[in-house]
């Protein structure tokens, strides 16, 4: 596991950087329906989008943002470490490879329905080059009031010292909103993704934030399927993770062997079941909220101790 990747350095920077809190971002698939809508919203939020890539549309502009044909051209022109990928799933493999080859350090992979084989290929490619990928099938990542890369609305988030990690998009908004309303601002909210394969999984996300003194708690929004929550519980125990952690698990009442919207949200036998996750969390001393609105209540109790 690479412990040395500093996601805040990439997303926010250090005070002495000339682009501190204004880190440049490239959007791949900027002219698509999704890409264009959200480029506008990210820009509105304050994200410094310096270039876009759409093959065949090089030389044009979108909202004053120059468009390039290839990532190599775009990165050549602007020194950029972050790329947001908004291309349709069948083009993801090519777009992600191109981004990694051009020297990008952080990939935020938005598309849903990426084949497992493509995710595994990119994951290996990224690891070999020291690149971090968030997603695919993620709403993205937001450092409230500083930078937003993804499709999340601005409304639910406020800056603070709680970290939110989520396997679901809208639940990340929902839970962050209840936290915001209860006075728990967020240091960072990161969408793990709803696929069976995650570029940055829960444990790696914990590694990204574990030694920071500006974080005081972690909220993990999970769902049925796989064993990410079970593994996280083991990790919390075995590494003696000291910050308060509160969890939520969606899908308790879902039928077995049915894919509940997300490719990764499926229970086989007891594998991936909510009971398994809740009982493992219990062993790690992590309380699990019954509904989103209960998350800040449990967090308050945890922080008092």
């Amino acid at each position, binding site marked *: 596991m690479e412990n040395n990747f500093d996601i805040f350095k990439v997303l926010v920077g250090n005070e002495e950087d000339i682009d501190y809190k204004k880190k440049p971002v490239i959007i791949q698939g900027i002219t698509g329906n999704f890409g264009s809508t959200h480029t506008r919203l990210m820009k509105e939020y304050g994200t410094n989008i310096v270039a876009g890539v759409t093959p065949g549309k090089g030389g044009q502009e979108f909202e004053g943002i120059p468009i390039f044909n290839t990532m190599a051209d775009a990165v050549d022109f602007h020194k950029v470490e972050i790329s947001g990928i908004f291309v349709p799933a069948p083009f993801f493999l090519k777009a992600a490879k191109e981004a990694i080859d051009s020297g990008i350090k952080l990939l935020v992979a938005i598309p849903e329905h990426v084949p497992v084989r493509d995710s595994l290929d990119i994951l290996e490619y990224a690891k070999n080059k020291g690149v971090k990928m968030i997603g695919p099938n993620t709403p993205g990542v937001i450092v409230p009031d500083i930078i937003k890369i993804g499709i999340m609305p601005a409304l639910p988030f406020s800056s603070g010292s709680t970290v939110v990690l989520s396997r679901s998009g809208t639940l990340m908004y929902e839970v962050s909103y209840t936290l915001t309303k209860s006075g728990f601002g967020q240091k960072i909210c990161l969408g793990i993704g709803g696929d069976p394969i995650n570029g940055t999984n829960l444990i790696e996300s914990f590694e990204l934030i574990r030694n920071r003194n500006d974080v005081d708690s972690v909220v993990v929004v999970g769902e049925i399927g796989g064993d990410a929550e079970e593994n996280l519980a083991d990790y919390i125990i075995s590494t003696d993770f000291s910050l308060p952690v509160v969890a939520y698990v969606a899908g308790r*009442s879902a039928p077995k062997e049915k894919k*509940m919207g997300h490719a990764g949200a499926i229970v086989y036998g007891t594998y991936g079941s909510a009971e398994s996750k809740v009982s493992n969390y219990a062993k790690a001393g992590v309380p699990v909220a019954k509904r989103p609105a209960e998350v800040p209540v449990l967090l308050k109790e945890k922080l008092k101790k």
Partner: protein
Amino acid sequence: MKLLEYQGKELFSKHGIKIPKSFLAHTLEEAIDSSKTIGFPLVIKSQLTVGGRGKAGAIQKCTNESDLTTKFSELLHKEVKGELPKSILLEEMANINKELYLSIFLNRSKRCFSLIASSEGGVDIESVKNKLIIDLPNEGISDTLAIDVADKLNLEDRNKASFIELLLKLSNLYKTEETELAEINPLVILNDGSFVALDAKVIIDDNALFRHPEFKKYETISELEQQAKNYGFSFVELDGNIAIIGNGAGLVMSTLDMVTDSGGSPGSFLDFGGKATTETIYEALKVISQVTKIKSILVNLFGGIVRTDLVARAILNAYEDGTIKAPVFARITGSQSEKARELLANSQAKLYDSVEEAITNAVNASRVI
């Protein structure tokens, strides 16, 4: 997508993995016809996606034609875990010398494919202690690894070459067909030393289907599910009478849980995805209007960038043209909510600020006879 046994076996066959002589029958006539080619005794196996067929008695041995006639009809009408078969597989009896277990599955936590092999086959693999689990590189199983596995399984020397060949074929299968699971349980060694896949459990990566149009023919989704899919919705029909609609799989699952906790019974799960326009909401309502048992409709929409008046307009449209009749209970965060409330003021739809309120009212409405 989980394939039926015979479909999995078709795939095995395509990749040169031996399967028993078998025929698929939909009617007794077809069954008796193919029994003449296979000969007695033979085995009939209900084609179901659910597991535990053997224990449920959905696999039967038939010794003669009258035996087949009785048991075939029984099996065709035998429900296992709520599922009825559409077809029955007839198969020759194998002269089994030894049973093994072999599978390649997507290992989510290790983020790779893993191989499980055991010299104890035909049983539930989770209960087997003596098994090999090997994480595979993205390239699949190499010759060296295949040899290594054959050694570790303590196979007789005369069987090793065939086993290695089979393992390489299975490796080729999972990579090229993009399966999430390819399981042979049991994999049997016949008296003549050949390896035969007696069962097949295969799950295809749905997201890779665009590269495998040939699997389209295996899709068995209902008309309603197909309709939902065409609109880009995720839709699951459930047993209860409250339709749940929302944006985002996690949010809809979460709503499902809360409805269940409140004593309600969800009748459908519909995630309409990232775009909440008048059209998408209207289409979503159109889909769930076809689920006959629905007594109330719960809309849980976390917008932020959603215009709630557009959602309200869709609900109104659906009432006006008679698409829906059941009351709608909606919780929508987003802009223009005053306008949305005005639009819905004289309709059967109500907007709530909290999801809890919307759920309480939806559950109450679902209890009205």
